[in-house]
Structure formats: C-alpha cells, structure tokens
C-alpha cells in the first residue's frame, strides 16, 4: 500500500482583517465592495488601522462602517469634508479619510469638498463616481453623462437643460492646497492595479503631511443603469473613461 503524499497548503490570498467578514448589502456588480477592499488593504499596508478615523457619508456607502472596522463618524449629506476637517483639527495625529459618492460630493457637498481641498486639510477623500444617485433610486447626478437616462432625466441628460457632467478630479487638482488628485477605474485588472497605486499615494500625502489627497473611482451601478453587471463593467470602458479620462491630475511629489 503506497502512502499518500502530504498535501502542503500555502495561503496565497486573504481578506484584510479590518474588512468585516459579513454579507454585503451592495447590489450584484456594484464596485463599492472592490473599492472598500482596496481601502482596507491600504489601511493595513500603511499600518493605519489603529489610528484611523473614517467619515462616512450619505448614499449607498453610508454603511461603510459595517465593512471597514475602524472608528467612524457619520456626516450629514455632503458635509463629510467639513466633518473630517473638524476630526483632523481635533485629533491631528489620527489618519482621517472620508468616503463619498457623486451626489454627496459633487452636488450638495460641493462647497465643503472644494474648501477642504483648498485649505489643504491633511485628510484623504475617496470619491466614488457612478453617475447616478444610487440609494434613492437612480436619479440624475451632477456626474450623469450627456444622453444618459435616469429616473429624473428619462429622455437622457441634456446639456442645454441640465449642463454637463462635472469632472471633479480636474476641478480639485486646480486648487493650491491639493497634494494629489487622480481618477482611476476598477473595471479591469490593469486599472485596478493603477487604482491601488493612486489610493496608496492619496493616503501617503496625508501620512507625509503634504496636503489634501483626492482619488476619484469610476464605478458601476448596474441596478440603476438597468443593465447586467457585465454590461455595466463594459460601459465603464466604453462610455465613462472617454468622458472621465483616467490619470493623475496633480501630484505635489512630481512638481519642482
């Protein structure tokens, strides 16, 4: 009788410990989960978990605190950068990040994000742009693309009537207090690798005290786009990236 060779197990992939092992409330094909995970990975890689204070916002990602297990305060709609300013000023040694959607950040919270960025607050903002108000049922957002149909522009967004989509990474990059501003996507392995690098650099600007860090993630919302998860991911490459070009719009470390 021959002996069975010993099976050696090697762990090659694991969940970040700061990411809760719970079922997600996000819809199938939604990319908040991927982005949450990336945030969790960066917090652990930089050794920030114990000193992090997160500011959650209003929208689908209001439940950030159910998934990323750090001290968290919930901000009113759009006000996360102001709340994060208060947190950072009160506790200058903490690592402070806000996580906001496009309705929250680019519409009702436009003043708060622009001024926190312009003051150069030592905070990091993770901005998720899926071109609709997700939690309230898919209404038009300031980032909705021309021609895109939503429940409040059923014939498609019209530039003459509703203006064009706001490109936040570019707007933020124009402000003096900003150390880093980039736009990324998580629709492909290649783009995810770039996104991770951008997120790391966003966090790094705070760790090094360089200034305000901002990263815009293009993301899917299959439910409110009324398409399958696969079709939603394809839309990111076909429509979103041409309208919201990926790239680093400002990096203080690369300037003279």
């Amino acid at each position, binding site marked *: 009788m021959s002996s069975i060779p010993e099976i050696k197990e090697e762990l090659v992939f694991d969940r970040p410990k700061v990411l809760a092992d719970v079922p997600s409330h996000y819809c199938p094909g939604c990319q908040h989960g991927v982005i949450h995970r990336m945030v969790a990975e960066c917090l652990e890689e930089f050794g920030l978990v*114990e000193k992090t204070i997160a500011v959650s916002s209003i929208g689908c990602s209001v439940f950030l605190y159910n998934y990323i297990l750090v*001290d968290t305060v*919930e*901000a009113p709609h759009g006000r996360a950068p*102001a709340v994060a300013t*208060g947190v950072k000023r009160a*506790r200058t040694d903490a690592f402070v990040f806000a996580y906001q959607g496009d309705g929250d950040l680019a519409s009702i919270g436009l003043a708060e994000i622009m*001024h926190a960025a312009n003051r150069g607050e030592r905070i990091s903002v993770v901005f998720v742009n899926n071109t609709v108000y997700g939690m309230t049922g898919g209404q038009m957002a300031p980032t909705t693309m021309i021609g895109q149909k939503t429940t409040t522009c059923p014939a498609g967004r019209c530039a003459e009537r509703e203006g064009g989509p706001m490109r936040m990474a570019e707007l933020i990059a124009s402000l003096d207090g900003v150390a880093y501003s980039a736009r990324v996507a998580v629709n492909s392995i290649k783009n995810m690798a770039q996104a991770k690098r951008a997120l790391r650099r966003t966090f790094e600007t705070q760790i090094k005290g360089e200034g305000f860090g901002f990263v815009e993630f293009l993301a899917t919302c299959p439910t409110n786009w009324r398409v399958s998860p696969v079709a939603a991911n394809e839309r990111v490459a076909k429509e979103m990236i041409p309208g919201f070009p990926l790239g680093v719009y400002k990096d203080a470390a690369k300037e003279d």
Partner: protein
Amino acid sequence: MSAKRVFIKGNEAIGQGALAAGCRCYFGYPITPQNDIPEMLSSAMPAAGGQFVQAESEVAAANMLLGAAACGVRAMTTSSSPGVSLMQEAISYMAGSELPGVIVNMNRGGPGLGDIGPSQGDYFQSVKGGGHGDYRTLTLAPATCQECYDLTFTAFELAYKYRNPVLILGDAIVGQMKEPVTPREPLPIDPAEGGDWKLTGRGERAPRLLKSLFLEDGALAGQNRLLQKKYEAMRAEVLYEDFETAAADLVVVAYGSIGRIAKTAVRALRDAGLKIGLLRPITLYPFPEEALRALAAAGKRFLTIEHNLGQMVDDVRLAVRGLADSDFYGVFPGNLPTPDEFVEPIRAAAKGA
C-alpha cells in the same frame, strides 16, 4: 484665586470664557454682530494650542464642530440668526448622534436678513429643536458680560454631561456692550473626558461608531426613547434669577438683555410702591416652569416681556396653565427698548387685576 477683572465686550467674554473652559477647537464664519469672537479667537486659539478655522459657511462650521465633538475635544462655533439657521442641519445630527458642542447665537433681527440690531426672535428656534426631528438643545441666556463668561463654562459642562449640543442665546446688546468681567482660573484639559465614546482611532479596542441613522426595526424608537429620558433629566439644570417675586402681585417674566432692562423698570416701580417682581429665566431650555407654576399657585399674575412678537410667552402660559395666564408686551425687533418703555405696560398689567 481668580484673575484680575477685565473690561470687555460680551462677545469677547464668550471667547475668553471658552478658552478658559478648555475649548480647543473653534469654527466660525463672519456675521454681524458676533465678529469679535472669531476675530479674537483667530489668534488666541492657536496661542492656546488649539485650532481656529474660518469655515466656508455656517453649514461647514457647524459640521466641523460635529467632527471635533466626535473626537471628544471641547469645541465651539458662534454666529447670529441667519447663520444659526444654516447650522440647524448639523445641530440635529449632533443631537441624534449624541455629540457635545457649544453653539452661540448672538440674536439679531429677522425674519430673513432682518437687521444687525438686537432681537429675541430666535427663541422658538432655540428651545423647540430648531432643526428636523424630536430633539432639544440646552439653551442658556446671558444678560450681562459676566454671565456671557460664566455661562460659557456652564455650556461646556452641560454639553459633556449630557452629550448634547448646548446653545448660548445672547443678542446684539449683550454681545456689543462692555462691562467688567472677573475671569476664572482656566480649567485643565481633561484627557479622560468622553473616554467611553469619543473617537481616537480604535487602537486595540473595538471600533466605535457615532451616527444618527437607525434603520433596524424598532431601533430609532429606542434611540428616541433614550434621548427623551435625557431631556427629562436635563430638567434638573434649570437656572433663573428671582427678583422680589415673594411679595409681588405681578411677576414680570423676561430673559437676557430684555430681562435686565425690565429689571430696571421693575425696580423703579417697586420704589414707587407697586408690588412687582421679576423672574428672569437663565436656562430657556429647560424652562423654569416649576418656579413659575409655584408663583401661579401662590396667586401671582404674570406679564411676559420679550424683544419679539410673542414666543416665550407661550411657555409661560403652558407653565401656569389652569392656575393663571400671562399678559404680553413685545418690542418689535428693529426697535431698541429703554426701561421707560416698560414702565407703562407693567403699570397697566399691575392694574389689570
């Protein structure tokens, strides 16, 4: 040992009181008639090792307050009526999330842009919640520059005792006038304050969460029950000035600067032989309803005087309901009253029996 008396404005007394009470974060936005506060704190706060931010709006200032409060650091924002309207969103969230902070309203005339002179038009907004949802904010009404200083200490104590926003409701009179103020020994910063709830970064403990969203079945009702119990407990904090009510037939009820002006009129009429007293609520929420009810039970009559069209008078009438009523004399915001203006209305109310 307290420091030497200083001759300062009510606005400055609030700024200095806040620093001495351990306030280390200030967020503000310019608006008349309270600009002395952000102006003095823009240098005094950093000098004390604290943080000063001129916010982009009162909306942002109040949300910065919310953020600093979540960290358990004594923090304050100050404004005047139109600005305080903009803060109501954050104040509601702070009440819902049980966050302590001090909000100063140097009440000016309204509605709308109104004027920059004194008014008591924000009484309802201050004591009935002000923003959305069922909540209350402790509300303190100083009548002198010394009270501006002292009540700022009280405001921070109460904010942390109850984990609730506390309002200081002054007006353009008390904010802009100068009086001698005796400062107190500054309080040491207590690093243990808020120790079991404040956000510090989780370290080795379980993460903490400060929020006002309660979606699970029955969770919001539970939170509201908890808040309601807290508001009941706050009734123990009632403060008021009682001036010669025991032998009075008529009790004048007035708060803040108007309470002080009315007191001069009451004193003059007492000298002329009329049996009049004054009850000046210092806490507007909680309202001194038991004191008023006891006076009503003793057969007193009431005249409420306000610098508005009749707001606190509703609470006086509720306090004495079934036993007495209250007459009302209102000075329209936009006019500045003198003690003489109150003499005739008080005399008429005294005769009205």
